[in-house]
């Protein structure tokens, strides 16, 4: 089996979410991705989501958040604050096909690592910069977080309850979105390089990359002068559509009364099918009998539909309605997602045996199945600096003495040198989950979750 990017090497200077998503996809497709972190500036996500919520020892090698987007990569530590480290990065450039970075725009130039400089080292290099607002324009130097870019992209303007304020998705939406856009842009540049031998520079604004999701709203304003209003879960095109409350089942600690199903009725035939499946053929005719009535009396219809869904299990109702030919999807909580039979059969989660963590299900980063190859995603994430010797000696030929000196000077190493002492950080990375549950940000805490996931006994 040949993976498409075998023989391609990526020097990965990105951190956190968008950039690592981009390079993780390249890694899964066969590229050798060398992730560069600084001891004073390690990827911050190494601090998030600890197994069993413990912050012991080298906790930064055990983070679930970090594993998700860095599985399969190699890790070296080089701090850009040190000129010698910058020099070593430059010496690695000739061995790379792609350099990926996600600093704010002024940073790479400051270190002499901008595209013009890299091109002098290696003319056919492909460089991608993933930044919040792009490399040009008056917002270029803005500090950007994914949480802010979704509202800035226009998506939040059409996300929210009816008559309510704009809302964000519960993830940093533009990060995974722009990360995938970045992977595609790099693949397109590789395709071009194969034909012409030429490298190039990709300026990816995470903000801009996601604006097309608001395409309908933009076109509505452009063609009609109207700014679309927030419509909750309703549809521009079909009625009824909504997310309806189901019977409250006890699926975990304190999860009663939070089960829901999404339903869309597109036409008369689907409405008829719904009424019969729900055991209410009498709803079929009368005021809801045609598409106009269903649009006009949507509120009343929602109450009627809820009177039925309220008595139903959300998963059973989904199967019942789908069998009748109606679009329905149970709203799954994260635990139900992990246990979902369809996603399990499709292999949406890899079981990854992470050293000092044990086996955990980890979501894939490319939602495609290929007939000719299997993307290599079931690999653990590297420990901080795990491949320092392998890369700096194996590739650049540094001697044992040089490596020892760099370690002495804390240019390289395997322990972070943050501003906050490590014993304080060990406390910080443990989350007050009981308090979270009290607040309501956590709906349930299962002590036996490893049994439930079938991973008991494999881990530590």
């Amino acid at each position, binding site marked *: 089996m040949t993976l498409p990017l075998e023989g391609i090497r990526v020097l990965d200077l990105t951190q956190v979410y968008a950039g690592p998503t981009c390079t993780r996809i390249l890694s899964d497709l066969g590229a050798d991705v060398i992730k560069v972190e600084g001891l004073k500036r390690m990827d911050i996500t190494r601090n998030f*989501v600890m197994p*069993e919520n413990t912050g012991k020892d080298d906790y930064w090698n055990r983070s*679930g*958040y970090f*594993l998700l987007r860095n599985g399969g990569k190699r890790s070296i530590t080089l701090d850009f604050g040190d000129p010698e480290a910058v020099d070593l990065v430059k010496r690695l450039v000739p061995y790379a096909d792609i350099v990926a970075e996600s600093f704010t725009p002024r940073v790479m130039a400051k270190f002499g690592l901008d595209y013009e400089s890299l091109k002098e080292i290696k003319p056919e290099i492909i460089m991608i910069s993933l930044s919040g607002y792009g490399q040009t324009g*008056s917002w270029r130097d803005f*500090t950007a*977080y994914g949480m802010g*870019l979704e*509202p800035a*992209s*226009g*998506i*939040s*303007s*059409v*996300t929210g*309850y009816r008559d309510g304020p704009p*809302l*964000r*998705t*519960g*993830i940093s939406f533009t*990060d995974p*979105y722009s990360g995938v856009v970045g992977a*595609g842009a790099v693949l*397109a540049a590789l*395709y071009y390089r194969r034909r012409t031998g030429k490298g190039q*520079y990709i300026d990816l604004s995470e903000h801009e*990359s996601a*604006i097309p*999701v608001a395409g*309908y709203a*933009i076109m*509505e304003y452009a*063609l009609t002068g109207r700014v679309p209003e927030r419509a909750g*879960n309703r*549809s521009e095109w079909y009625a009824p559509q*909504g997310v309806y409350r189901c019977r409250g089942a006890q699926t975990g600690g304190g999860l009663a009364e939070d089960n829901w199903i999404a339903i*869309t009725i597109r036409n008369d035939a689907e409405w008829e099918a719904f009424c019969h499946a729900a055991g209410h053929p009498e709803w079929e005719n009368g005021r809801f009998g045609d598409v106009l009535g269903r649009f006009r009396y949507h509120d009343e219809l929602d109450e009627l539909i809820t009177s039925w869904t309220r008595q139903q299990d959300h998963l059973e109702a989904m199967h019942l309605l*789908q069998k009748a030919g109606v*679009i329905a*999807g149970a709203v*799954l*909580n*994260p*635990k139900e*997602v992990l246990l979902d039979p369809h996603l399990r059969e499709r292999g949406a989660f890899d079981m990854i045996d992470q050293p000092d963590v044990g086996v955990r*299900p980890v*979501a*894939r980063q490319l*939602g495609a199945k290929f007939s*000719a190859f299997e993307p290599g995603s079931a690999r653990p994430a590297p420990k901080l600096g795990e491949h320092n010797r392998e890369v700096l000696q194996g590739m650049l030929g540094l001697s044992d003495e040089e490596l020892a000196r760099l370690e002495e000077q804390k240019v390289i190493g395997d322990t972070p040198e943050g501003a906050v002492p490590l014993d304080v950080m060990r406390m910080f990375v443990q989350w007050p989950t009981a*308090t979270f549950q009290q607040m309501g*940000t956590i*709906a*349930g805490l299962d002590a*036996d*979750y*490893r049994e439930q996931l079938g991973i008991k006994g494999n881990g530590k």
Partner: protein
Amino acid sequence: MPDSALAGTRVVDLSQGIAGPYCARLLADLGAEVIKVEPPEGDYARRLGPFPNDVPHHDRGGLFLHLNANKKSVTLDLETTSGRVVLRKLLANADVLIESETPGLMASRELGFEQLNDEFPQLVYCSVTPFGQTGPYASFKGNSLAAMALSGLMYITGDPGKEPLCTGGEPAEYFGALHAWVAILAALEHRAKTGAGQNIDVSMLEALGCADEYNTTMYAYLGAIRKRFYSRHAIPTYPSEIFPCRDGSIVVIGGATGFPLMMAILIEQPEQEGNPLFQNLWLRFMQWEKFEEILRPYLAEHDWEDLLTRAQELRIPFAAVLDAKTLLENEHLRERGFFEEVEHPELGKVPLAAHPFKMSETPLRVGRSPLLGEETHEVLAEVGYEAEDQLVLRERGVT
């Protein structure tokens, strides 16, 4: 004229709706020749609007333009044997086929991957559907809402006391489009090495699953089931959400360096620097209502652009909340040339979201969407159909 990354690549796009067509548009923007094969009545997205003056017309849909720029349109009835004969001629010169039919339908038309692979071994055959070609939900009907529901992303979006909320803009379709696009480019790389095409099965649901930030991880590592909480992060980064201000809304984010000092300076209450709510992020996260009592009155008296500019000067990562109008008027986007005006024969000049990323050597192409069947004659002539043959095909309703 600058070169294009995918110049010389030919795509036959049989897909309808949003996911498949947007995937094909990204390939077209990169310079591939995309032949959009539509049923004689057109891609159903032609009926989805928005339309000028709200008058539906198959050549005046705004969403259709957004999803199908830079393509050629050929009408072809694939339910007929004659239509399929024409399609096979098109596939002889094609590198990629994209389809979005219910699983099994293409095979029933003898146009499934297995049926085409012998004759067209070079072809990269990509299916984009809500739930994929296999598994218990393969036969389910789906849309963006249902895929978002099953992905887990809806459960964590919205107010805790209300129903889970779907992100606007049909995000499952766009995520599906992106994953299909990346998968097709990967398959073209693979083909360059091996000479072989292949089958790609993209599921919108799984594309969304890839986007999940840490929610399944929280269960797999802590046994914790995260719940929606005003779209707030579980990670201690509060505040990181949208607040009302005098003239609209503003995204307030503290970031790594905003607290305690810079935020106190921003809201012109330097004494708050010593407030435990400013000093301690856990306390702020847990006693958020108290913190908001300080923040909200100040925001209510200031405009978003003023707040944004001053916060950024203090290196606090505030962000704007833009809508369709303010996006199109945004100075930064104008400076970067993100929107480009295209001239459409039915719609006149229309701004198009044109540059999701910029490539220095191979800039993305900017063009309009095709009228229904606009290139049928041209494309069929290229594969050898004389004018008389084309007339027969047209009169019999094949094209």
